[in-house]
């Protein structure tokens, strides 16, 4: 048992230790920024670089924001990366068949919704655990993408110019300043805003939190659990589809596995964000910070020319650190559990 458990923190008066645990992730984020600023003073803390970071993180941001909705209920959606890849392949195949951008985007979004419905039905109505269900669909989506594409990338002349230019385009800020807000960043911000309003200001969003807090009590209290869980997976599938299209547009290439990295990073971002919530709940504001932490790390470490493998290691370490700190404070709060623990384990006697 760690010594931190010895005293119960008092309600609202925050001691320095509690403050650190509560806002540690935020402080850590600022320290990381400060570190890179001092290491790369010319390039890091510049507007073009930050705009670049937002563009790099926009795709991850979209899936992380929509995954937050699923994770609020205590579920996971592991299939988002594979679904994003599949949507890219579907849109690419539409282009190869001579389809328009509108047709490709519409069909891509439809595939995302269908994938979400499938996940949601399996979890909410069939009753399979989200982990197992979405692990299954992950494998199936990946197989489907490989089957449709024959394992090959889709690129080249079949892809309309206006589609690929969207992913590289930007809206100029001010007149002739040279700064421009990337389309992808704007799209990610819009989705962030949608998720933020949904989770914080709608009946359905607040009920998702109730389901995550106590599913049985939510059901007895008149919450339509299955319907809402299904909805959360549909939004997650839709987010994966948008991300898949964004990725396809930015790379002008659809590869059947190009979205794979998104899922673990998105879940990591949500976990980082949970550490910033008083009750350790997923919250999309925190997820945004989580995405930025991952983005700044990748950007800064790349500027310092650190091996990408080392980058992965350091990212993993930071995630574990942040979640460890917050789970310690979580234990201290749940003192009912903790009191029982004490009575089970009295201090050893003199024997």
């Amino acid at each position, binding site marked *: 048992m760690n010594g931190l458990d*010895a*005293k*119960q923190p*008092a*309600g*609202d*008066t925050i001691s320095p230790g509690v403050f650190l645990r509560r806002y540690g992730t935020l402080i850590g984020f600022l320290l990381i920024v400060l570190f890179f600023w001092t290491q790369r003073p010319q390039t890091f803390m510049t507007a073009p670089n930050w705009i670049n970071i937002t563009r790099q993180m926009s795709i991850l941001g979209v899936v992380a924001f929509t995954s937050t909705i699923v994770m609020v209920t205590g579920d996971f959606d592991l299939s988002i990366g594979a679904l994003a890849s599949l949507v890219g392949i579907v849109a690419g195949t539409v282009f190869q068949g001579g389809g328009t951008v509108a047709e490709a985007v519409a069909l891509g979004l439809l595939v995302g919704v269908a994938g979400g419905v499938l996940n949601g039905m399996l979890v909410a109505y069939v009753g399979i655990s989200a982990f197992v269900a979405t692990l299954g669909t992950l494998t199936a989506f990946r197989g489907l993408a490989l089957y449709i594409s024959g394992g090959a990338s889709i690129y080249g002349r079949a892809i309309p110019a206006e589609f690929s230019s969207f992913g590289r385009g930007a809206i100029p800020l001010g007149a002739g300043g040279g700064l421009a807000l990337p389309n992808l960043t704007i799209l990610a911000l819009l989705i962030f805003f949608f998720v933020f309003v949904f989770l914080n*200001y*709608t*009946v*359905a969003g*607040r*009920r998702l*939190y*109730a389901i995550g*807090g*106590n599913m*049985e*009590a*939510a*059901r*007895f*209290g*008149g*919450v*339509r659990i299955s319907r809402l869980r299904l909805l959360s997976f549909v939004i997650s599938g839709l987010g994966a589809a948008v991300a898949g299209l964004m990725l396809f547009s930015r790379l002008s290439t659809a590869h059947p596995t190009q979205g794979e990295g998104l899922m673990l990073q998105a879940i990591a971002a949500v976990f980082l964000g949970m550490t910033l919530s008083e*009750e350790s*709940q997923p919250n999309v504001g925190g997820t945004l910070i989580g995405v930025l932490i991952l983005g700044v790390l990748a950007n800064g470490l790349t500027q310092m020319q650190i091996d990408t493998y080392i980058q992965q290691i350091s990212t993993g370490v930071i995630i574990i650190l942040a979640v460890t700190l917050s789970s310690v404070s979580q234990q201290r709060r*749940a003192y*009912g559990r903790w*009191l*029982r623990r*004490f*009575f*089970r*384990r*009295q*201090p*050893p*006697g*003199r*024997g």
Partner: protein
Amino acid sequence: MSRPALSLQVRHASKSYGGAPALVAASLELRGGEVHGLIGENGAGKTTLIKLLAGLEAPDRMQARLNGSAIDIGDSAAAYRLGLRFIHQELNIAPALSVAENLFINNPLPRRGGIFVDWSTLQRRAEAALKALGIRHISPRRRAASLSAGDAMLVKIASALIGDADSGEPRIMIMDEPTAALNSAEVDLLFAVIARLRARGDALLYVTHRLDELFRIAQRVTVLRDGSVISSQPIAETSTAQLISAMTGRGAADGEKAAVRAAAAEGVPRLLVRGLQTDAVAHASFRLGAGEILGIAGLVGSGRTELLQALLGIEPLLAGSIKLDGQALLALSPARAWQLGIAYVPEERRSQGLFLGERVSQNITLPHWERLSRLKIFLNRGAAHAESRRLGAAVRLKSAGIKQRARQLSGGNQQKLLFARAILAQPRLILLDEPTRGVDVGAKYDIYRLIRQLAAAGAGILLVSSELDELIALCDRILLMRQGRAAEALSSAGLTENQLLERCYAQP
């Protein structure tokens, strides 16, 4: 005994949580050879006081003296060194282990060569520890799983003392509702052990909700209310009525028998159930008038809870019909039931009712959010907060405001949250499952008052309770359930608890 009598003095113990005082300058003295009762409503500060004594929480202010010299209970190890021993109400025993191993569960097992368990020494010491407490009917070799609740509690007590088995030195024992899960024969055994501890000079602090127990075993009694000591006196100088009014701050007179009985309404009944059948309910037919309180009595497992759950649409109907104000309810679900004006207070408030991490306002308003929304989509927080405040006042909720988290409320106040939720939209039918289980006397009266008010306002109320006096005092009629069948409805007028109990046990 030649040693001077043990004495633990606590003076001016104070503790607040986030500005809300939980304990205000509380003082009391425990003496060797005495059982000192500690009573008070939930939230009165009993648990806080115990936590300060156990060194689990740092007091804002507290002076403690052990046998006259000042002591500092800095942490739980210090409390142990000072001779304080704690018995929690919950029975944490390891069922797969033997009684002897459970006795040593917080201490190193005797060993041979530092590695192997010395089984014979273990048995011998375990036997001696049980004998020292006068417990002869429990073999140390038995599996703990086979122990009754009462015997498990005795093992727990022996276990708390096992480190001191040889010294025989008197200890300060602090017991938090040890009889909560025991039947009366088990309580007798426990009291015999307590008498033995008292005889050897232990000082005992005994926390309970059951006042009759205090008159059996306690010499002194201290009453806490809102964190302050209201009285601390020899038990011989007080009475049950005095203690209740000290705890609640109200006269005991507005008690249980003052039921205002609304006449069962004529005409269309509020609720009409015909031939209802689910997995757990074999057959139920009854009617409930508007303004009527219908009790449901029966043994645990007789299908009482499942009957209520069928009426909320939790348990699917296999056969039969439910009519609310003459309207047949088809394809019922909890969501639909709440919309129709059926409210539910579940049996297990923590696992089935509350969102402990959420705020008071969310807990109260959750089922009513469609009503408290704009366009049925956006939650109207202003309206939700206003409703929470209104209902919090109506049920006399004691909280630090509607933004407090449900986890931080006492048991009685948590139950009031569920009542506030149930009555927010003036329900037509209210389903109550053990609404006063585990709540203190004061909250109990508040809940009785509420139930009567709701009935007087015209709601039909179905009340499941295992407390027969409660059923007889509150209900107009009582429906008996036996083995999944709603057997008969009795008028509660003139009914005694014994008659009711006999009917519960009667063979169909």
